[in-house]
């Protein structure tokens, strides 16, 4: 207690030192006066009295010093002095300080920003109750490790399993919403009744579904997403109880989901509807359309649950005689489904950012080292004047800390900017699939990360010169002739650092090169159609209006006729699904006349109009396209792609052969009338699937996409197309208007590849610049240290050419080491990130060669400048300088 009080007083004593000093001076003065008075009274002379008094006091300055030390905390005072001196040093060398801080800020900023994403995506728990126990529970087949459930299977799974506390399904669905401005196509999610309970999410307004609302023919009710409540109901609390017209049915709003709720697979779904109405095929055991999630019971492991579910599935397959699917089950943590896709990218980026940080620290450390070198004399003088080694080291530590502090502060600013920039890069509909983006920002986790890496940077920056200092004897610093020793030593340390820097730069450059190539190849995969000047949009026709086939057909024909007569339109086609979206809407086909043992003949199924494939400018290989009059009254026909022809009709002419499937639950056969080039239906980074195209006039979908071939700019056509469609029928829902090329650019595959290529590319450029600057620094320093040696050599008759060679030789070795080490590391690093590569190997020779050449050329340029300076040394000057 007493100690604490004294310590606090001393801490307080750090301030107001001047006042206390004055007071002590007064006190000592009065002390002396009183003593002198006494001495005079004892009969001494004035002079003697004063001398005796001073003697007894033991020296005013010494007393003052002892008093001062007792008055404050000398350690703290010294540290403050060190820091003050360090600040002065930095201010005096603004070039050095600014370079070091900017370099550190870049490195720290980049890694903190990327860490922000990693944290939000991979470390933050999902916004559900106890998310670790949530599983994606689905079927699984050889081709698709995660395959949706059929509804009857779901019911049986739910009834039979003991592993899950609850099991629920969801399925995306589009509805036509009637609004004051006409029909609008909206996204909704159909979910089983316990869906929100399983996730552990409660509506913020109203209530969750009741059990009976989930039964077949239950009431039409729905939950609103927070966004829908905000935008469609103006965030009014009386939204609950109102009705919403979806597909001509009046749904009662029973609740509003909380703001932080998001479920990535449902994207931007605005309405959440209980599963209580089923189409004909949804009641079938072989119609797989529902995705399952479950909450594991306590104490049940994933393998145990998987084993149980597999046994149940096998039993169901036997019981219902389901053939044709070797279905097993997949039980995977839900988090894996929600973020699994971005994990390799984020980890790669984090790796890249980490390397950048390392290179930045190394660079600043070598800067600090060079400076400590040039302050050798100053240090030696201070040492000779009595500064303890500890005190000298502390000086460097203070400077390192300051640099790290300012660097991290600037780095936090850089990080905040970068996070905002990167977060904004993701297009809206993709961002909705990455709900974690909302959590990206400066928070406790990123703060701790900043603190950790700043501390590491500070340690590195403080340790480098401190270590350097302890190598050196004070005496040597003062002596003149030791320059060779210290110089050589620094050259060795600095050279190692530069090799590390160059190696890192090679790794990042190689990464950027490979990712860039992947992106290029991805964007140049053969599409099988001409994507230029193609306008697309989604159209939904209300089933309440277009009840029978006649009406639907009439609508199709009117759309084709009206749109193709617009000026600027070359032709128009309709399809159930546009290309380059996904390998979904899959059909399982059989071949009449061939034995069938339940093979997985899964093919992409598209329903298209007669003009569609011609509008895409897809090449016809054999046979013919459909004709306008091939409707339901005619025999079923199908056009297949080359992959299907090659796979199932090798060496045969497929024209005239037949395929069979269950269309809308009815067994149907279709005659192959044409073979077309492979149109890439699925994403860019997945190989082409077999595909079949049925005439939309024979299948009659209520929801379809238009592909409009424009004569010139497709983008300017879009508004007119929308208004034309609304003229035909204001109740048509029109959405997703976009031109094809933009749509392709915005696909997930293209975006993710572009994102990573640009970022790693950016890192690589910074790394290259830093590495080359580092090399320049080392060589320039080496030249400055060897000026005398070079002068002697030249005085002894060395040619300028040999001086060049001397310097470039040194740089060449460093560069060569750096490049070789870097290449080895690159191959290892690229193998780790091969998931992100597309159409290019980790050991792609041309990329690695290009990287090595780039770096070598840059390194040569960087070392040429100091070499030139060395060669232009005037021997007389150089020797006189000594």
């Amino acid at each position: 207690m007493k100690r604490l009080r004294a310590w606090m007083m001393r801490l307080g004593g750090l301030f107001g030192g001047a006042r206390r000093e004055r007071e002590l001076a007064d006190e000592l003065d009065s002390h002396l006066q009183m003593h002198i008075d006494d001495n005079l009274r004892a009969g001494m002379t004035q002079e003697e009295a004063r001398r005796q008094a001073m003697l007894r006091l033991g020296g005013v300055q010494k007393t003052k010093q002892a008093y001062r030390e007792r008055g404050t905390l000398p350690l703290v005072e010294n540290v403050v002095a060190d820091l003050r001196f360090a600040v002065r040093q930095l201010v005096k060398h603004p070039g050095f300080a600014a370079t070091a801080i900017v370099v550190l800020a870049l490195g720290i900023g980049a890694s903190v920003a990327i860490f922000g994403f990693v944290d939000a995506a991979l470390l933050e728990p999902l916004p559900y109750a106890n998310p670790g126990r949530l599983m994606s529970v689905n079927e699984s087949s050889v081709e698709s490790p995660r395959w949706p459930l059929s509804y009857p299977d779901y019911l049986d799974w739910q009834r039979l399993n003991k592993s899950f506390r609850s099991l629920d399904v969801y399925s995306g669905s589009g509805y036509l919403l009637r609004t004051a401005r006409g029909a609008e196509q909206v996204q909704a999610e159909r979910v089983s009744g316990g869906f929100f309970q399983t996730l552990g999410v409660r509506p913020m307004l109203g209530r969750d579904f009741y059990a009976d609302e989930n039964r077949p023919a239950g009431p039409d009710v729905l939950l609103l997403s927070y966004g829908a409540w905000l935008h469609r109901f103006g965030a009014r609390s009386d939204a609950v109880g109102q009705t919403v017209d979806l597909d001509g049915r009046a749904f009662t709003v029973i609740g509003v989901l909380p703001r932080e709720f998001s479920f990535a697979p449902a994207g931007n779904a605005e309405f959440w509807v209980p599963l209580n109405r089923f189409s004909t095929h949804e009641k079938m055991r072989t119609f797989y359309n529902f995705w399952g999630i479950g909450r594991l019971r306590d104490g049940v492991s994933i393998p145990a649950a998987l084993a149980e579910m597999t046994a149940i599935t096998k039993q169901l397959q036997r019981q219902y005689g389901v053939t044709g699917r070797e279905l097993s089950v997949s039980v995977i943590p839900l988090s894996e489904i929600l973020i699994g896709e971005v994990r390799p990218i984020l980890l790669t980026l984090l790796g890249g950012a980490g390397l950048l940080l390392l290179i930045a620290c190394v660079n600043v450390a070598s800067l600090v080292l060079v400076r400590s070198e040039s302050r050798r004399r100053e240090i030696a003088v201070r040492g000779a004047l009595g500064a303890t080694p500890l005190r000298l080291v502390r000086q460097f530590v203070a400077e390192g800390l300051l640099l790290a502090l300012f660097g991290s502060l600037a780095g936090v600013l850089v990080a905040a900017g970068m996070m905002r920039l990167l977060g904004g890069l993701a297009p809206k509909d993709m961002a909705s699939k990455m709900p974690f983006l909302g959590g990206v920002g400066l928070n406790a986790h990123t703060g701790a990360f900043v603190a950790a890496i700043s501390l590491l940077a500070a340690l590195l920056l403080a340790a480098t010169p401190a270590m350097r200092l302890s190598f050196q004897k004070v005496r040597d610093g003062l002596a003149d002739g030791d320059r060779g020793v210290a110089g050589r030593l620094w050259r060795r340390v600095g050279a190692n650092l530069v090799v590390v820097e160059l190696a890192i730069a090679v790794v990042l450059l190689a990464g950027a090169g490979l990712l860039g190539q992947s992106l290029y190849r991805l964007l140049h995969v053969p599409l099988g159609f001409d994507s230029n000047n193609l306008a697309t949009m989604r159209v939904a026709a209300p089933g309440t209006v277009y009840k029978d086939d006649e009406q639907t057909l009439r609508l199709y024909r009117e759309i084709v006729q009206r749109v193709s007569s617009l000026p600027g339109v070359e032709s128009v086609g309709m399809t159930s699904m546009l290309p380059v979206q996904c390998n979904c809407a899959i059909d399982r086909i059989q071949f009449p006349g061939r034995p069938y043992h339940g093979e997985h003949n899964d093919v992409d199924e598209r329903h298209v109009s007669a003009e569609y494939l011609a509008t895409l400018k897809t090449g016809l290989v054999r046979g013919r396209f459909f004709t306008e009059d091939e409707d339901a009254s005619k025999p079923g026909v199908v056009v297949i792609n080359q992959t299907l022809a090659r796979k199932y009709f090798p060496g045969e002419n497929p024209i005239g052969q037949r395929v069979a499937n269950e269309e809308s639950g009815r067994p149907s056969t279709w005659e192959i009338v044409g073979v077309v080039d492979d149109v890439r239906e699925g994403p860019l980074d997945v190989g082409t699937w077999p595909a079949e195209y049925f005439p939309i006039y024979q299948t009659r979908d209520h929801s379809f996409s238009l592909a409009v071939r424009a004569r010139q700019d497709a983008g300017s056509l879009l508004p007119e197309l929308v208004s034309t469609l609304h003229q035909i029928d204001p109740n048509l829902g029109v959405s997703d208007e976009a031109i094809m090329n933009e749509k392709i650019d915005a696909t997930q595959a293209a975006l993710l590849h572009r994102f990573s290529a640009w970022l790693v590319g950016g890192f690589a450029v910074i790394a290259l610049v830093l590495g080359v600057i580092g090399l320049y620094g080392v060589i320039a320093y080496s030249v400055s240290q060897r000026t005398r040696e070079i002068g002697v050599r030249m005085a002894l008759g060395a040619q300028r050419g040999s001086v060049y060679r001397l310097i470039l030789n040194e740089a060449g070795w460093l560069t060569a080491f750096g490049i070789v080490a870097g290449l080895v590391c690159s191959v290892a690093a690229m193998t780790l990130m091969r998931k992100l590569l597309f159409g290019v190997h980790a050991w792609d020779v041309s990329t690695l060669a290009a990287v090595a050449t780039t770096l070598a050329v840059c390194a040569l340029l960087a070392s040429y400048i100091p070499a030139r300076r060395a060669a232009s040394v005037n021997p007389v000057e150089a020797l006189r300088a000594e």
Partner: protein
Amino acid sequence: MGGDKADVWQGTLALMVLKTLEAMGPLHGYGIARRIEQTSGNLLSLNYGTLYPALLKLEQEGSIAAEWGVSENNRRAKFYRLTRAGKRQLEKEAQSWGQTTAILARFLASTEDPT
């Protein structure tokens, strides 16, 4: 004066200062120094300079308080007085000092005895 001795000296000096202030009432630094010398029968030759850091320490610990005033010879001087906490400390330390010296005395006596 070596480092180890200094600590002991500091402790005893503080005790002497406290005792002096208890006996004499408020007193300035010079007065305290002279008084300690006199009390010790001039056996202790105090280096007056060492007194001031000790006074500062006691002040920081709250055992004494200081105030500027005027001395008997009409000189401005800083007067120190014992606080209540200082009084308590004096009692405690005097007692512990007494114990220490008693133990030491007995110890020294016993080692000389066996002859």
